[in-house]
C-alpha cells in the first residue's frame, strides 16, 4: 500500500517537505513505519523523541496502518 506521512516542526526540516510518500506492506505497523523512516532519514534518531499519530490520535508501536489513514510524525511538542 501507498501511505502519505505528514511532517511538522523539525520533522518537516528533516524530510525537507511537509509530507512524504512511502510504499509499505499491507499489514505494516507503526513500528515498521518508524524503522523504515529512520533508514531513510537517520536524523530522526537524533530527536529527543517522536511519536506517530494515526487519524489525529497518538498511535502505539503495534498499531497497524491502513491505506487511507492520516499519518503524521509528531516531534516533541512545545506549544503554550
Amino acid at each position, binding site marked *: 500500500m501507498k501511505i502519505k506521512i505528514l511532517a511538522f*516542526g523539525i520533522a518537516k526540516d528533516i524530510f525537507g517537505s511537509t509530507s512524504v510518500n512511502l510504499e509499505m506492506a499491507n499489514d505494516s505497523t507503526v513500528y515498521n513505519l518508524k524503522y523504515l523512516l529512520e533508514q531513510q532519514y537517520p536524523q530522526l534518531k537524533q530527536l529527543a523523541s517522536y511519536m506517530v499519530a494515526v487519524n489525529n490520535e497518538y498511535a502505539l508501536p503495534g498499531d497497524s496502518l491502513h491505506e487511507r489513514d492520516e499519518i*503524521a510524525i509528531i516531534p516533541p511538542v512545545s506549544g*503554550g
Partner: protein
Amino acid sequence: MTKSSKKNHLNTNFQIFPFPLNVQYVIDWVMSPESGGIDVFIGTVRNQTKGKKVIRLEFEAYEPMAICEMEKIAAQAFKKWPVQKVLIHHRTGILQVGEVPVVIAVSAAHRAAAFDACRYIIDTLKQTVPIWKKEFFEDGEVWVGAHP
C-alpha cells in the same frame, strides 16, 4: 470560525488562530450568571530563554489533531473539577516579544476549581497538544525541545 470549531459544545471553545488572540472576547465567552470565578492564563512571548536573547517565535500546529487533544484535556478537566466553561485559544505564525501565543480561561461556581483546572490545562497542553515553537535568536533558530 475555523473548521474545527464545529466540534465545540456549548461549554467548550477550542480554536487555533493565525492572528492576534482577543482576551476580552475570551472573558466574555467564559462568563455566565452561574459562575463566581474565572481563571485566565495568558502566555506571553518572553525576550529571553535560558539567558539568551529571543528575537521572535514561530508556532506551527497540526490543527485537527491539536483540537482533538484540547478536547481530551478539557474532558479530563470537567471530570476532575466542577467547572462550567473551558476555552483554549492558540496562535500560529510569527510572534514578536510581548505577543500572546495562548489564552486559557475556565469559569466555575467557586474559584478553587477554576484555578486547578486552568493550571492542569496549560500543564497538559504543553505535553500533549501537537503545536511546535521555533525560537529565533540573533545567531540562529531552533525548534524547542526537539533534541536532547
